[in-house]
């Protein structure tokens, strides 16, 4: 099984290296082949919003940069990890610019899912999502919004499972909780792929 970590650490923000290290360790011990993309080091332009990836070059973004590679890696993973500073309850700019470039992975056609319209699948399988938000100091309201957002994303990205948790940035960061979270979703993804 493959897991892809999208590390959305900001250019002038705090480092998420130690957290990503704990996530990687646990994923590997759960039999994942792990790859991490430190997004701030990659050239990924903002989406142009023109839907050319649906009606001109179906399935591929018209911008030829690392955004294409990131999308190819994501769709061929069983699990994607969003690792991000929580920004007003949402994702960091670095993570979001990559996510905005993922819409070529779904179909333009509309489909009703649990009473609401969404887009149809383009591929048969999509990765489950583990979202790890990090805040200097936990704000409950933002933490709640973050979890709600991940749930919404899992519908639009057709993910079988999703888990989301927000952690406080601390010098003595306790990796036990995060490893437990990784284990929970790894087991679910593992069962699905058996």
């Amino acid at each position, binding site marked *: 099984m493959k897991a892809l970590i999208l590390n959305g650490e900001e250019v002038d923000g705090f480092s998420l290296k130690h957290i990503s290290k704990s996530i990687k360790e646990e994923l590997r011990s759960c039999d994942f082949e792990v790859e991490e993309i430190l997004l701030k080091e990659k050239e990924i332009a903002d989406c142009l919003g023109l839907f050319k990836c649906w009606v001109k070059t179906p399935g591929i973004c018209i911008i030829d940069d690392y955004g294409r590679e990131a999308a190819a890696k994501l769709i061929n993973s069983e699990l994607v990890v969003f690792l991000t500073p929580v920004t007003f309850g949402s994702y960091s*700019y670095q993570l979001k610019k990559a996510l905005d470039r993922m819409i070529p992975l779904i179909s333009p056609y509309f489909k009703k899912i649990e009473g609401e319209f969404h887009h149809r699948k383009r591929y048969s399988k999509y990765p489950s999502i583990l979202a790890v938000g990090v805040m200097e100091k936990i704000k409950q309201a933002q933490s709640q919004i973050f979890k709600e957002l991940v749930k919404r994303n899992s519908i639009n990205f057709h993910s079988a499972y999703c888990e989301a948790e927000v952690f406080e940035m601390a010098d003595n960061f306790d990796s036990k909780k995060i490893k437990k979270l990784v284990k929970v979703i790894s087991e679910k993804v593992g069962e699905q792929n058996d």
Partner: protein
Amino acid sequence: MIKFKKAILLIGSPKGKDSFSASLGSYLLSKVEEYDVSIEKVYLHSEINTEAKRIQFLDKIEETDIIILAAPLYVDTLPAKVIRTLSLIAENRKNINSDHSDLETDKSFAVIVNCGFPEAEQNKTAFKVYEQFAKEAGFKYLGGISIGMGGVVSGRSLLEMGGMSSDLIKGLERAADDIVRSHRFSDSVIEKTSKPMISPKWIYTLVGNFSWRYQAFQNRVYRKMNDKPYRREKFND
């Protein structure tokens, strides 16, 4: 008494002038102008790309009383560029006010979000994010106008849309009144603006599906529309 003097419209769509965000925001801004408020528009995707422009932009925000943001919904939340802009604003406000414990709340912030799905309710998480931003930046949050079916517009001004946009126009006119008075959007604004432009919803999705096919046909890729270019053997067919 109306005390506001300056309003700025931030357009958060990469499509710039051709976006639905620009049509909505510009109409609202023109109504705000009728209250003798001086106005300005900024296209976030093209106008804050250099350090010099960013500094100028942040100064402008500090000189403004009313900030209106019009943006599309991207992946259930704010487009990346909008997150970046709001982070810059919040950071700048914190730095300016570092010697005060609380940020002043003499500036107000209102949002218009439009999305491509027919249900305007799909914007609800984004509004929560915008409200958190307002809190962190020390702006008074006046509320959000939520619009679905963004696909019907494609660069037209609201007035060119005929009967389809009449409720929306009325709602935006009332919203301008709330904005200049620094009132939270009244129920009538929310009620008018959230009415679906096309009813029933399935007509919108039917026409939408047809429009994707038609555009692909014109681009000579109709038969490729369901292609899976990143399919890995035996994994994703």
